[in-house]
């Protein structure tokens, strides 16, 4: 599988070695356009894998809802901290 050498910034994240992570992060597109493109790509990958199929299951939507629940818990954590049962853990 050794076709023409691909520059490191174009590789996908799972193919980047740990030492090259800095280079990879430096070379990515962080302009608003690039961020929008990244969001669109991520959305398309998720959509085509879990929702845009003939017989989807509940997983496609349930994962989104579970992620939303977790994210909202994280955003509210500073407020929920006050409901703790013990002061020292």
């Amino acid at each position: 599988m050794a076709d023409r050498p691909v520059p490191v910034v174009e590789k996908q994240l799972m193919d980047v070695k740990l030492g090259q992570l800095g280079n990879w992060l430096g070379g990515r597109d962080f302009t608003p356009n690039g961020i929008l493109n990244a969001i669109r790509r991520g959305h398309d990958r998720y959509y085509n894998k879990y929702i845009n199929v003939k017989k989807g299951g509940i997983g496609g939507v349930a994962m989104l809802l579970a992620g939303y629940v977790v994210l909202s818990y994280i955003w509210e954590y500073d407020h929920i901290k006050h409901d703790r049962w013990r002061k020292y853990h």
Partner: protein
Amino acid sequence: MLSRIVFVSAGALKGSGSFGAGLVHASRSLHTSSQSLAPVPPLPEKGGKVRHGIIPEEYFQLLYPKTGVTGPYMLGAGLIMYLLSKEIYVINHETFAAASIGTIIIYAVKKYGSSFAAFADNLNEEKVATAQEVKDLAISSLTKAIADEKKEQWRAEGKGMLFDAKRNNVAMLLEINRRERLHMVSNEVKRRLDYQIALQNLNRQLEQEHMVNWVEKNVISSITPQQEKASIAKCITDLKALAKATQAKATA
């Protein structure tokens, strides 16, 4: 199975406009080969596998080589214990609400999931069936048009024979005309020649008669009166002799 309704409603909402364009962009960014849009590849049958509804299967496959089957569950249990003991997840009134709602949701999904999925599948099937009907109708009408066209071409070939027949007709008419004119020519010539012949005959006849009359007139004028008396007397004696001869014959 909720995703099926999402798909159905999303499809109804926006058509495939933005999603289709996004699909093209996604495929173009993931693959480096040039792809064409038609024919559109069919949708995959099943989505990515998800275990227990919220954890994708890839997580289990990631940990399987190192920790076997129970590894991910152990990791999950350890994480939950850590969150609870450090009170990163705080148990308050919301926990009770979440537990109740979660129970109801799981019960509803387990009980009515398959029937709901069948209903959503039916909707999709109907849509596909109507589209398929349109396609089949179009195909059948087009094949019929092709057959009609071929028939017209075959008919057009027959026109060659029609033209041949017409050409023969015209040639015959011309021939008839030519022969009529030949007849007319020969008739006219014959008439003129007959006229000349009649004219010559008439001339000869006139000349003959005139000559005869003239001879007669001269002969008669040349007969002197006394010759005339002598001839008349001879005629009378001849007649008497004849009468005697016939009388004798009659009585004999």
